């Protein structure tokens, strides 16, 4: 009797899971498998036309494609600059806000605003800010402060264009890490700081030996999430430079998008996105494996 009841309960549980499961299978698992299939073909988009099976050729092609390596380098560079950039600045802001008695909610909201604004809007905004002729940045540098004799063609040169894109990435991301850091800071027992202070630890020592170790799980979490986000950079690059000039500012996702949707090379595009997924998977695994440790008091 008891067993039959339990059986029935399990059945009901599955029934309740069914809608979500169907959704998950249709919109998450099926596309995953289909994309992998596409990546093995020279994929024809016309219904009824046979696609040519290429095996791993699309993957091998990426390794011999100089633009792929350029995109790889830019994506890695973007991550290497924007992840520490966001984390350090977010920590500074979080520490400052944590000490504020008045106006903490106000400033927290202000710093969080960039996070909830649309990527498209702020990307276009940055494009105008960094415009070579009429941009605000050039106006301030040349006409107001006279720091440069000529307007800087920010978006025409790969290096300066990447600076603009990475500045946007850091600016937009600070708020997200800040809120998480702030929550973690407020969770640190005040007794620990008091004890350290009594033992004669300076402010810096308390931060380094008390605050940071306790925040370790939070830091690792933010690091992993930001790294994933960094490798997935797409909208700002697509809208600000489109990978130009000469594909020098291309990132993996903009290159994938261009190959698939502009050149209709869906097989290669799918292979590129699987390569990106593999890289992110390995990186996230390594980060968690080697950085996450239980907090020791």
């Amino acid at each position: 009797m008891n067993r039959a009841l339990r059986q029935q309960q399990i059945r009901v549980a599955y029934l309740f899971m069914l809608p979500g499961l169907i959704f998950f299978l249709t919109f998450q698992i099926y596309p995953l498998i289909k994309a992998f299939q596409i990546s093995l073909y020279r994929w024809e988009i016309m219904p009824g036309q046979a696609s040519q099976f290429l095996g791993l050729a699309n993957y091998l092609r990426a390794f011999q494609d100089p633009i792929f390596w350029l995109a790889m380098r830019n994506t890695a560079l973007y991550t290497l600059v924007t992840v520490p950039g966001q984390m350090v600045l977010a920590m500074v802001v979080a520490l400052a806000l944590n000490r504020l008695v008045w106006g903490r909610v106000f400033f927290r909201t202000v710093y969080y605003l960039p996070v909830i604004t649309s990527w498209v809007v702020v990307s276009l905004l940055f494009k105008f800010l960094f415009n070579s002729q009429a941009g605000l940045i050039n106006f301030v540098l040349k006409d107001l402060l006279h720091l440069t004799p000529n307007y800087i063609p920010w978006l025409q040169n790969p290096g300066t264009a990447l600076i603009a894109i990475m500045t946007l990435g850091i600016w937009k991301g600070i708020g997200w890490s800040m809120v998480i850091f702030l929550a973690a800071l407020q969770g640190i027992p005040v007794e620990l700081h008091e004890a350290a202070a009594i033992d004669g630890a300076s402010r810096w020592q308390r931060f380094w030996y008390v605050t940071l170790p306790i925040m370790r799980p939070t830091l690792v979490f933010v690091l992993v999430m930001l790294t994933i986000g960094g490798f997935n950079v797409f909208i700002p690059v697509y809208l600000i430079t489109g990978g130009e000039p000469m594909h020098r500012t291309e990132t993996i996702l903009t290159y994938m998008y261009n190959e698939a949707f502009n050149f209709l090379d869906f097989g290669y595009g799918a292979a590129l996105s699987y390569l990106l997924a593999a890289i992110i998977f390995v990186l996230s695994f390594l980060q968690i494996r080697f950085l996450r440790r239980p907090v020791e008091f």
Partner: protein
Amino acid sequence: MNARKAFLLLIVLVVLALVVIACGPAATPTPQVIKETVVVTQVVEKPGEKVVETKIVEVEKVVTPTPQPEGPVTIAFWHAYNPVETEMLTKKVIPAFEEKYPNIKVEAQAVPYNEFRKKLLTAIAGGTAPDLIRSDIIWVPELADMGALVALDELMPDFDEYKDQVFPGPLSTNYWKGHYYGLPLDTNTRILMWNKEMYEAAGITEPPTTIDEFLAVCEKIKSLGEDKYCFADGGTYGWAVLPWIWSFGGSLTDPDMTTASGYVNSPATVAAYEFLKELLDKGYLHPGILGGGVDTSGGYAQDQIANLLEGPWMPAIFEAQYPDKEIQWALMPAGDGGSISVVGGEDIVMFQQSQHKEAAAEFIRFMLSPEVQLMMADVGQVPVRMDVTDEAVQKQPYFALFFEQLKTAKARLPHPNWPKIEDLLTSTGQAILRGEKGAQEALDELAPKIDSLLATD
């Protein structure tokens, strides 16, 4: 755990976009393989003699059968006309058509140009392509090669009547592997738009007719000031550089599009790029060509840019934005290859997935009739029919020079791989203008890359 979840979500997001396109439902009309007997006349060349042979060959054709229309049918027509042109289409042209053919309803849908190709490809992959589109001329070979288009010269028995009536340059953009997959609908080209006020300030009375004269003009314009430019263009894509390449006597490939080696790196093509580099180095050419955007119309209107290569849509734009500035036109300056500009414009093409091919063909005929061509000329569309040019010029006097230029204008490579070829061409142009590579070296490197793209099929 969080990271893993996020990772899963990430992959799903990455691939979802890809798959939305790929996994649509299959096309409703079922293509059938039909065996057909065709009489082929061949000229066989044997050593010393020419024999004309007539053969009966059985060929296999994939056709999608169209049911005969019984009741009223509706055909879908996608276009990217601007608002003024769209009003003419929906308020006058289509009502006139529906009056003439009460059994056919035309559902016109305006699709913004920038989204047109993606939206169309999504529809094709999902089996829901419209019956007809007004296609940018550069998309036609790609769509034809994909097998998406109906060969109009097979479908329309009266195709030759239209073929012989339209300008050959725009017509050529519909040709792919032995068939015509569309008909030109409107055309345009780029001619020299020169700035009278700046010319007068620099003491020049006449627009240049040759490239040497153009250089002389530039020298004088530069003396007006450091921030005055002789010429500006938005980048190094085909639309921008090809008029110079062709007018210098260069080209991208041989006429049959089989090889680029010896053409894209020929002395004439190299000279064209070196000319552009010289313009840039001397400050004649606005650095906006290196990217980052340049407001060419604004620069012209505010007397900062003395020359542009522009199309017939400019008068309407200036009327709206800079009503006080008058536009002057002249032909593309001639070089060793003559005065040769680039053909733009749109073709009308029909999709295999169309269920109402006969009705759609009627609409094509109607859009190419002299009456409709002249109606659209009222809103600035340059007609493609040679027999209405005089009347069109009476309506829009500035069309005259465009018709003149169109006589020699050439189309960008009508090849399905043009988007990739143009991508390489654009990067190569950037490398040359930025001085990273010499023109000869860069074009020598480019040639074999284009060669392999020409061969890919």
